């Protein structure tokens, strides 16, 4: 039976009263990631918004074990957890590394790449809010072209996002997925699937950020829906090389077409200073990626 809101487990690992901003999609994503892993997990997390969510000593807002690790070391910390568990013969636990885009695309890429090359047996989730939101919204390798941030304050970012999913796929790992916090059942299913696979599994989770992207708290889900509908993000998974579109992206590919990316951009204050040329460039990137997806898809 397909998972839906009615039959999805009621067991929660996220406790009420955490420190995230209202409307935080990381909180939503994390809630469903932990559900999917049924609490049989050890988490490692670098400095990030999730550190904020986890709370301050001596109280934590989650009912799962976790070690906080310095910014650059998430992939290595996960490796250590896996190695330690293996050395001690503990087999019933999934290791989950979860980092923001800064901790994945930028400072964390070396340790992650090393771990993926070694085919370490853990799930790495990158929750991507497209900037250093925890430190007040500075640009990262994932901040989009034209977006205003603390370190691109006037003109907006002048470079495009790094394609981290392609980079991870190039490592030849058994499972790569693109999900969105705003599509929680799709995310849940992807984590469930990842749980059953051995080796390094990478799940990219799009996490719209109301204060950082400058939209209102209640619009978090709408922003994710718009992102999918315009092709700003594509929901897919690559399992042993086989590419499948999932959820709303699959529906768009089956019937319908992408809406103009402008519709997505115009909803967010961070794109207030974007130029027409930049919008065109972003639209071209979106079109090119969508075409690549349609060329590769195996489930239509």
């Amino acid at each position, binding site marked *: 039976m397909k998972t839906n809101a009615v039959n999805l487990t009621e067991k929660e690992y996220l406790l009420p009263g955490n420190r995230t901003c209202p409307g935080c999609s990381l909180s939503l994503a994390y809630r469903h990631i932990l559900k999917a892993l049924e*609490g*049989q*997990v*050890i988490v*490692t997390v670098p400095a990030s918004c999730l*550190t*904020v969510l*986890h*709370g*301050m*000593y*001596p*109280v*934590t807002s*989650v*009912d*799962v*074990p*976790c*070690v*906080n*690790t*310095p910014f*650059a*070391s998430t*992939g*290595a*910390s*996960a*490796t*250590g*957890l896996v*190695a*330690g*568990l*293996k*050395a*001690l013969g*503990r087999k019933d*636990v999934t290791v989950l590394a979860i980092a923001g885009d800064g901790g994945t695309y930028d400072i964390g890429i*070396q*340790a992650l*790449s*090393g771990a993926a*090359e*070694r085919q370490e047996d853990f799930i790495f989730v990158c929750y991507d809010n497209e900037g250093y939101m925890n430190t007040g919204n500075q640009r990262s390798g994932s901040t989009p072209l034209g977006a205003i941030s603390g370190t691109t304050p006037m003109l907006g970012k002048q470079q495009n996002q790094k394609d981290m999913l392609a980079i991870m796929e190039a490592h030849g790992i058994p499972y790569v997925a693109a999900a969105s916090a705003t599509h929680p059942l799709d995310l849940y299913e992807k984590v469930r699937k990842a749980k059953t696979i051995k080796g390094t599994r990478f799940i990219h989770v799009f996490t719209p950020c109301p204060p950082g992207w400058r939209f209102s708290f209640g619009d978090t889900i709408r922003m994710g829906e718009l992102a999918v509908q315009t092709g700003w993000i594509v929901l897919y998974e690559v399992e042993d090389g086989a590419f499948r579109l999932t959820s709303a992206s699959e529906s768009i590919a089956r019937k319908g077409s992408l809406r103009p990316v402008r519709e997505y951009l115009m909803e967010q204050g961070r794109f207030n200073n974007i130029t027409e040329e930049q919008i065109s460039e972003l639209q071209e990137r979106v079109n090119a990626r969508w075409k690549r997806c349609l060329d590769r898809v195996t489930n239509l």
Partner: protein
Amino acid sequence: MINKKLDRKADIQILDGNHAAALGAKLSRVQVIAAYPITPQSPVTESLSEFVEGGDLHAEYIAVESEHSAMAVCTSASLVGARTFTATSSHGLAYMHEMLHWVAGTRLPVVLACVNRAIGAPWNVQNDQQDSISQRDTGWIQIYARNNQEILDSVIQAYKIAESVYVPVMVCYDGYILSHTEMPVDVPSQGDVDRFLPPYKPHAILDPANPRNYNLVTLANPRVNADGILCHGYMEIRYLLQEALQKSRETIINVGQEFGKLFARSYANMFWEDRLDDAEIVIVAMGSLAMEATVAVDMLREEGHRVGVLSLRVFRPFPKDYLIEALSKARLIVVFDKNISYGSEGATCSEIKSALYGNRINAVIRNFIVGLGGRDVKAREIADAVRKSLPSLEEGGPNIEYPEWICHM
């Protein structure tokens, strides 16, 4: 005194320092090893890989992509309850710097073999002690070996110390001088090491059945937990680390004595003494340099000088109280440092000065910076430096504020 419980007689093997370190880790039954190659440490990691691949050591060997990652692997593996080991040198240790703090702050008994090597720029792969001395404030215990026997013995003792006081231990030994020089090493049997070193009992463990979250943001002031218990602030956690290092001095000595009883090689003090009983001149050195200094003492004694050597075995915690008696009769202390705190002096010299302060020891202290980047330090040069310092003993003799360098400048 040979303990009757010993499995068998001495097993003398000809080992270089790196193999002695690797063997020490193997005999300690390490469970997770993570390391990255760097000269002159690389043979340690190669030996351990061989032990693991050959099935002689049941451990996970992780060939990480950096030293930062090596220490991150050790941290997390230690937190799920595994005994962990790594080894590095120089830039590798510098690259680990952040993680060294993290391990000590989490109170994880990781053991690291540091093969002492100079730090760039400019590039240099030879020996000095700038690398480990630069990490003295990270909250690690630092033990320095004078020879390969001490390397092996110190690694085994390091686990016992670290797992008793929950402070990580760095076993330091001189690159090439020890790491690549073969000498006879008495290798204890596995059974005897097992008798000495019990399995690792973690103070903290990651377990879904009892979820705990380690190293969250911690406020300056104490905060109440969910059960209403007032827990520490950041400062109390730091205080506890300092307290642990202070108290570890007793543990280090006890472990050294216990080791001595079992293996007939006592490590009952935090420093080694050579002819200090009647010495009015004391040479202070650390690591293999101390062996060279004993040769210098032979020369100087022949000239009628009452000279001895105090060789520091443990640099952190610094054995302040313990040194006072050993230095109480000294009139001149000549400190040789294979490191320099730029703008000040050698680190050992500063420590000795600080230890003597307020203890009514009015010895003159001279400091020589030697052997940086592998510059050979000959016994003759040590003796010359002591002779050069003798005028400081005379009334109104020179009091040199800054260290002197034994180099061509």
